[in-house]
């Protein structure tokens, strides 16, 4: 019996030839990462409770300040200071204000075949490069940071076979919203979501990351795409050459297979307050918005910024709407500057923010007030996620957010030149 690529990655990490779903393994971790959402707690546990002295490997433990940066209060400044001091003391890679943690990991660290554990739920993003990333809480993370190992249950795998091509104005973002809407917020609980098929083979790394990143919103342990020349080119262009290219066997066993055809897909919207409450943009009716946001680990990369810029070019946003744009990393920001996208955004009336989690995290930038409505490319639309408990968040693609910012209400981007 063959193995899926996820099973192969976990077999390698646990030093076994074969693993099966349901089996509990102790795995060696290739990389671990923590951000300012919870690292202060890890440090407390590490130093005061475990009384540990060393991290397992200073090259494989990464701290990234991205959730509240620049700090908006003395409290968060203290958290950042604590991380900075720990990183210096243990001589581990440290980033502050350079981008959303998952984007930095993808640009600077991850290679196909790795097992990566991070104290953040969207660690499943790394499947876009064919690596197994999964999120844990700070206690599990502290134990990983100390020992380099973690126990994991080998999950079942769900396969998503994608064919066809995106119509103009439709993106990977719409596909993953559609899938989550279909299978539900726990439709992949404890499972691996493996995305494949002829369409995914043509996807860029950015689009693959968009799919894998939101696997957790369906409850998945991780999302994966088989690594191929596209993934190899991406990491080799960044100077990383050691990797393991695991692909699923012909006779691998999947719990279930789903089929999607991109030819039939329209722009999708997740409506408040659950990511699996998804409708097509044509069924949304009239929804007035107060703010738009383009950014986050899901949708703040160069391709999404290009899609938004195409729609905003030469136009002005609605005078009573704010549009906030945060490129996912310094590298993305520089690319957008070089391509003239930032000029387009600023001239349209958008506010361009430093790379960080921003509005998606809902505590340091662009927090919305009582009764306000946000349309966002972020990862979640939970009640109160973006600010006041009585506010609303709709999730959509960067193109849909841009089109909506122009009209002041949720708008189908296909009506604009794209």
């Amino acid at each position: 019996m063959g193995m899926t690529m996820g099973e192969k990655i976990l077999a390698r990490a646990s030093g076994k030839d074969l693993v099966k779903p349901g089996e509990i393994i102790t795995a060696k971790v290739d990389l671990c990462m923590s951000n300012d959402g919870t690292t202060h707690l890890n440090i407390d546990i590490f130093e005061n409770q475990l009384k540990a002295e060393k991290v397992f490997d200073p090259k494989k433990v990464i701290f990234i300040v991205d959730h509240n940066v620049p700090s908006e209060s003395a409290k968060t400044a203290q958290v950042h200071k604590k991380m900075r001091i720990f990183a210096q003391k243990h001589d581990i890679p440290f980033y502050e204000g350079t981008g959303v943690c998952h984007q930095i990991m993808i640009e600077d660290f991850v290679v196909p075949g790795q097992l990566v554990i991070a104290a953040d739920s969207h660690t499943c993003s790394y499947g876009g490069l064919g690596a197994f990333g999964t999120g844990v809480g700070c206690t599990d993370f502290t134990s990983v940071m100390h020992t380099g190992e973690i126990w994991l249950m080998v999950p079942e795998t769900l396969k998503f076979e994608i064919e066809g091509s995106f119509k103009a104005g439709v993106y990977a973002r719409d596909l993953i919203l559609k899938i989550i809407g279909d299978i539900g917020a726990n439709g992949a609980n404890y499972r691996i979501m493996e995305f494949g098929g002829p369409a995914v083979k043509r996807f860029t790394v950015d689009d693959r990351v968009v799919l894998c990143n939101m696997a957790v919103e369906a409850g998945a342990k991780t999302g994966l795409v088989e690594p191929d020349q596209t993934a190899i080119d991406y990491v080799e262009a960044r100077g990383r050459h050691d990797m393991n290219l695991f692909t699923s066997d012909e006779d691998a066993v999947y719990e279930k297979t789903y089929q999607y055809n991109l030819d039939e897909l329209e722009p999708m919207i997740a409506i408040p307050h659950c990511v699996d409450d998804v409708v097509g943009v044509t069924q949304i009716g009239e929804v007035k918005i107060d703010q738009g946001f383009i950014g986050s680990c899901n949708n703040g990369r160069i391709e999404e910024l290009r899609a938004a810029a195409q729609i905003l070019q030469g136009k002005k946003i609605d005078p009573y709407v704010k549009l906030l744009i945060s490129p996912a990393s310094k590298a993305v920001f520089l690319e957008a500057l070089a391509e003239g996208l930032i000029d387009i955004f600023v001239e349209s009336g958008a506010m361009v923010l430093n790379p960080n989690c921003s509005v998606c995290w809902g505590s340091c930038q662009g927090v919305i007030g009582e009764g306000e409505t946000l349309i966002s490319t972020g990862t979640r639309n939970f009640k109160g996620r973006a600010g006041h408990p009585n506010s609303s968040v709709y999730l959509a693609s960067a193109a849909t957010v841009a089109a909506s910012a122009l009209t002041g209400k949720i708008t189908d981007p296909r009506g604009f030149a794209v």
Partner: protein
Amino acid sequence: MKEAFKGRVWKLGDDIDTDIIIPTQFLALKTVEDMKKYAFNPLRPELAAQIQPGDIIVAGKNFGCGSSREQAPEILAALKISCIIAKSYARIFYRNAFNNGLLLLENNELYDYCSEGDHVSVQLESSQVLLGEKSFEVASIPTDLLQMVEAGGLVPFMRKRNGK
């Protein structure tokens, strides 16, 4: 771990996410004791003050979905909830709860039978939850996980084991 205990039920729905359990704005508060006052704030702001030690939360499917923030199970443990009985849990929350000494039990039917304010009794040895005359089966929890819950979570458990 007490093998049998009884508690008053607070009933919550499906997909109770981590932003509802503890919203982002309160994560920078210094202590879990400060944070616990805001448990379930976006959904039921009055609830945290009403919860008494030993109370039980009964919920629908996918409890704890969303972020990996460990403050979510931590504040529920700090409110001294004796256990949660939900139809199902999100996987990150599940690990985090046991790691923080919070007992989670799974049952599909109890939710539809019980009302808020009911008293249910949990019998770990026989893996049963009793409500009046009716009993509901929960999956049994391995002894070492129960010992971890009793110790207050993974870190105190490891320290106890290592004799530190």
